[in-house]
Each structure stands twice: as C-alpha cells, then as structure tokens.
C-alpha cells in the first residue's frame, strides 16, 4: 500500500519547494517565491490532515470492478524483503516509488519532486533536533576541491579526470548523549636527575604514586544511528556546532535525503561510553605534570548516563569516480569539514622519497668524508 507523503508545493505556482541551505526559508526554484518555515508548516499541516482523511476513505471504499483483470499469479507479498520496504506515491507525478523502511525524505527519480514521508518522523520516532544545512551543493563541491589542495600525493589524473558521480545531501540520524564520567586513575611517576660527582655519573630516580580523581560532564556526544552511514566517516566530520540546533521540523528536509535511525540507543551506547571514558582518562592524565615519566597503573571510571536526544545532522555524501573506482567523501553540511581517503600516486610517493633521500644521503656521504679527513 502506498504511504501518504508530503511534498511542499509553492502556494503561488505549485512547483516544489526546497529548503534553502543556510536560511530559514523554503524557496520555489520555479517562480522564485520564498516562504518562512512557520508559514509553510501551518499551511501544510492542514493539507496533510485532509490528505490522510482522503486516503483512509479510499482504503475503506475501493473502486469495484465487475470484470477485473486476472492478476492471481502476481505475488502481493515481497517476501522477507517486503518487511524492510515501503512504497509511496509521488504527489507531483503520481509515480509509485519503493524505498527502504528507514528512508524518510527523498526525491522522485521521475520528476525530481522533493518529498517527505511524515510517518517516519511521527510519535516516538520524531527527532528532537535538526541542524539545517548551511552548505549548499556548490559549497559542498567547493569544500571537496579545497580538500584536494596541498595533497602532494594526489594523482594528477585524479585531479584532471575525476567525476562526481553522485552528490546527495542527507540528514543523518544521530543519538546525542548527555552524561557524566567520574572516577579515578592511578599512575606511577618518575623524576630523574643525573649529575656528576668525581669520576662517577649518578642517576637518581624518585618514584611516586600519583592518584587523580574527578569528573567530566558531556553534552550531546553524537553517535551515528544509521547503518547506511559508515561510522568512521561520521566520526571524522565532527564536530557539529550545536549553537545551530533547531527543534525538529520536516520543513528543513525538502531537497535532501533523510534517514530514520536503524541502530538503537542501546546499540550505540558502547561507542558513547567509550568516548566519555577516554576523555576523562585523557583529562586526568593531563593533570599529572612535573614528572619525566608517567605510566598509568589503574583506571576506575564510571558513567552517570543522562538523556539521549535524537537529532538529524546534515551531511553531504559525494561519490567521486576515478579509474572505475568510487571514492566516498562525507562533508559536514554545517561546517564543511571533509572526510575521505584520497587515492595515492605511488610514483609521487617514490619521487618525494627519492628527492629527499638522495641529496640527504649524498650530504651524509660528504660529511662522512670530511669527518674522516
């Protein structure tokens, strides 16, 4: 069964509205009109209600046909895959589209109409926050080009022939953890003093037992809640600036893909815990000063877990094709920070190594000759 969808259409010309990155407005690409989020949300909440009622009525009173086509051999069931699939109808061109159950906002591949599937973000599944995109597509591409700069080992052919196969703005679901880490750590510290007395060199080592205890509070530690997104990429585009966190509204979604979470809070706990514990350990270690050698002996860190928030954070995903391989880049849609492993030209690596090693070695040889007399 098709799912009801919302697409924000321009009240003036009915063309699709898209969220304009870096603003609080939805813009019509066709007639140039621009509307406040609040205005559009009010306008469409009424429309959504009417559409839902219409769908319900259609479901209860289907059109009857006296002599229907024989479709008995067609399987209605999608089998085991069906549970993970959803269909929706594009309100612009009426195409029936299939996507997986976690997709919450997308665009129609036939007419390009941006669509939000509101059921995905209702009730308990509704995110608390969203950081709207601050970078538009052009800025994201510019950030990627900028990322290439100064990379000496980047193959020249990559710069000349790479093509951006796909670029997609995605609101990625994140769990944001509040909490506190507390506990203590024990270290051994050594202070070493070397001095000379007569013909003897004396090394004195003072051994200390060092203990530190304390606590650190954390606010909104993000952990990627989507299996589609590679966790390391999401970690690498941090941090996000929470000053721009907004209460969630689907009005920010048109024009971008949006996923709902498919990794539970419990599944993400471990990563959040690990990050908080490690941060407190680092902070306690940094207070152990005045020693020549410090070695951790034991650590007893506990967590006081607080609230978990659900947020949609903006990420540009770019697939760059080069040499028949796809290179994935993720760009923080708020700060422009780029994460992605670049291809390496082994020729350039060898050239740099040789250009350093050969003259340095020659210099070393000459120096050896001079020293040897």
């Amino acid at each position: 069964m098709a799912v009801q969808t919302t697409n924000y259409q321009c009240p003036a010309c009915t063309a699709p509205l898209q969220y304009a990155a870096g603003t609080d407005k939805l813009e019509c690409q066709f007639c140039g009109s621009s509307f406040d989020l609040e205005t559009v949300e009010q306008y469409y909440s009424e429309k959504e209600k009417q559409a839902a009622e219409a769908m319900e009525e259609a479901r209860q009173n289907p059109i009857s046909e006296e002599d229907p086509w024989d479709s008995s051999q067609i399987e209605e069931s999608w089998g085991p895959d069906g549970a993970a699939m959803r269909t929706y109808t594009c309100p612009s061109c009426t195409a029936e589209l299939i996507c997986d159950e976690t997709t919450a906002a997308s665009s129609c591949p036939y007419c390009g109409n941006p669509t939000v599937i509101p059921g995905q973000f209702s009730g308990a599944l509704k995110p608390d926050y969203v950081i709207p995109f601050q970078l538009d597509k052009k800025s994201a591409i510019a950030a990627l080009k900028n990322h290439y700069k100064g990379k000496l080992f980047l193959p020249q052919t990559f710069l000349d022939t790479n093509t951006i196969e796909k670029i997609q703005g995605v609101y990625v679901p994140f769990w944001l953890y509040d909490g506190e880490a507390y506990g203590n750590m024990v270290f051994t510290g050594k202070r070493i003093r070397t001095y000379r007395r007569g013909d003897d060199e004396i090394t004195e080592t003072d051994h200390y037992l060092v203990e530190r205890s304390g606590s650190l509070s954390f606010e909104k530690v993000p952990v990627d809640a989507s299996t589609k997104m590679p966790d390391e990429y999401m970690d690498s585009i941090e941090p996000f600036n929470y000053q721009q966190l907004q209460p969630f509204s689907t009005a920010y979604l048109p024009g971008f893909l949006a996923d709902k979470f498919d990794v539970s809070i419990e599944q993400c706990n471990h990563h959040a815990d690990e990050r908080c514990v490690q941060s407190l350990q680092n902070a306690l270690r940094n207070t152990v000063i005045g020693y020549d050698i410090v070695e951790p002996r034991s650590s007893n860190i506990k967590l006081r877990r607080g609230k978990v928030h659900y947020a949609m954070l903006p990420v540009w995903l770019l697939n760059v094709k080069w040499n028949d391989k796809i290179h994935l880049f993720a760009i923080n849609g708020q700060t422009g920070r780029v994460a992605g492993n670049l291809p390496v030209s082994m020729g350039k690596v060898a050239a740099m190594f040789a250009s350093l090693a050969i003259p340095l070695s020659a210099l070393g040889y000459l120096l050896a000759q001079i020293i040897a007399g």
Partner: protein
Amino acid sequence: MKRQLLKITLILLLILSLTFSVFATGEWRNDAHILDRANLLTQEENEALNTLASQISNEYSCGIYIMTVPDFTAYGFGYDIFEAAWRTYHDNELGYGPGRDGMILMLSMADRDYAMFFYGQAEYAFNDYGQEQLETVFLDNFRNDDWFGGFLDYLETSEEYLSLAAQGDPVRESPMEMAGIFIFIAVIISAVVTGIFWAQMRNVHSKREASHYITDGGLKLKGRTDLFLRRSRVVRKIPKQTSSGSSGSRSGGGGSGRSGKF
C-alpha cells in the same frame, strides 16, 4: 725578618725550579728518544728501542719519543697527564727540524696513566682516528706489564703510519661506516617526511574521545595525591679512556693527543 723571608722564598723557588728542570730537561740528550725514569726497561731494551726510535725519526724527519715516570703528579703539572706530556715536549723543545715535528708517549706508573702527544707534521700522520688506532696496538701489552713489547709495537706502528703519510696516504678512518650511518639517518628522515604527507591523504578515523562535547567548566578535579615512594640511585663510572687535547685548548705550542689508563 724580611731577609729570612726572602731567603725562604728563594730556597723554595730554587727547589721548585730544580724540580721542573729535572722533569723538563731531565736526561733528554740530543740523541735520546727514550727516557725510562720508571725503570721499566733493561739497558739492552732501552738501547734497542732508542736506536729504532732514532732511525724512524731521521728517516721521516719526525721525532719519536718515549718517557716513563713513577708518578707524573710529583712534577707539579697538576693532575692531567696529557698536560705533563705536552709540557715535556715543549719545555724540552723536542721534535725534528725547525717545525719540531714529533710525538711522545708518556707512561706514569703510580696510577697506570698514559698520554700521547703529537705535534707538527706528526698530526698529519696521526689524526684523531690514527691516534685512536695507534693506542690499541700497545695498550694490551701495557695491561700485561709487557713494557718492551708495548713500546716496540708503538714504534713499529708509528713507522708504518709515518711511511704511509710520507707517501701521501695517511691512515684515515674509512668513511663508509660513518657514511652508512648518515645514509641510514637520511633514509629515516625521508621516510618520516614522506609518511607525514601520506598521512594527510587519509583522514577517516574512528573517534575515541569526546573532548568537543565537554560542558563549560571542564574537568572537576576532586582528588590529587602525589605520594613519594622511594629513591633509586644508579652510579656509573665515567670512562677516562678517550680524553683528547687539541691545539685550541693548549697555550704555547698546540698539538693534539690522547690520554687514559692502562
């Protein structure tokens, strides 16, 4: 009273000058190359070594000398045997020709100290490496109280070195070993620099900490203990084997050399 004081001063000065002159001029005669004040050699050994030293000196125009003393500190040159050797060489105007080219080996038996001093053209034949190599040929003899054998090795090896220097091919350290070390360091530096640039190509990493999300106020440190447990001490003898002199650090003559214990 004043006269008495003057007399005492003069007597002291006389004793001092006699002491120095004994050490300075001692029994060095024009043809003497060996001065065995510690009586380590027999008369025959002394003569044999003196003849050989004389021949080498004349052949290569480079004075070659050996001196043994019971205790070099008794001569008022402080506690540095190298300085004693240096002073002996210059105060006695040892050496060959107007440039006073030459070298001396001094042994002091009290604490088994030795010093070598090289001057003028001898420094060309025996650079730092040459001096280091030379001492290895006689030190093992001296450690076994083989005085004649050690002095003979000293003279014969010196002759060999002087001969090579005369041919324009003085003994020098092979640069290859040191070059190998330098080249290894160069390769390491190159690899590190290359590695730094390579690391820039890969920036996808899992985050292990959450420092960006620490609330205002940061760490609340509640306990802080630094408890002293104990003090350990390691004593290491500083080897004196490789002390060396240089023209820059010695006034009134210059030269270079090595000193140590055997």
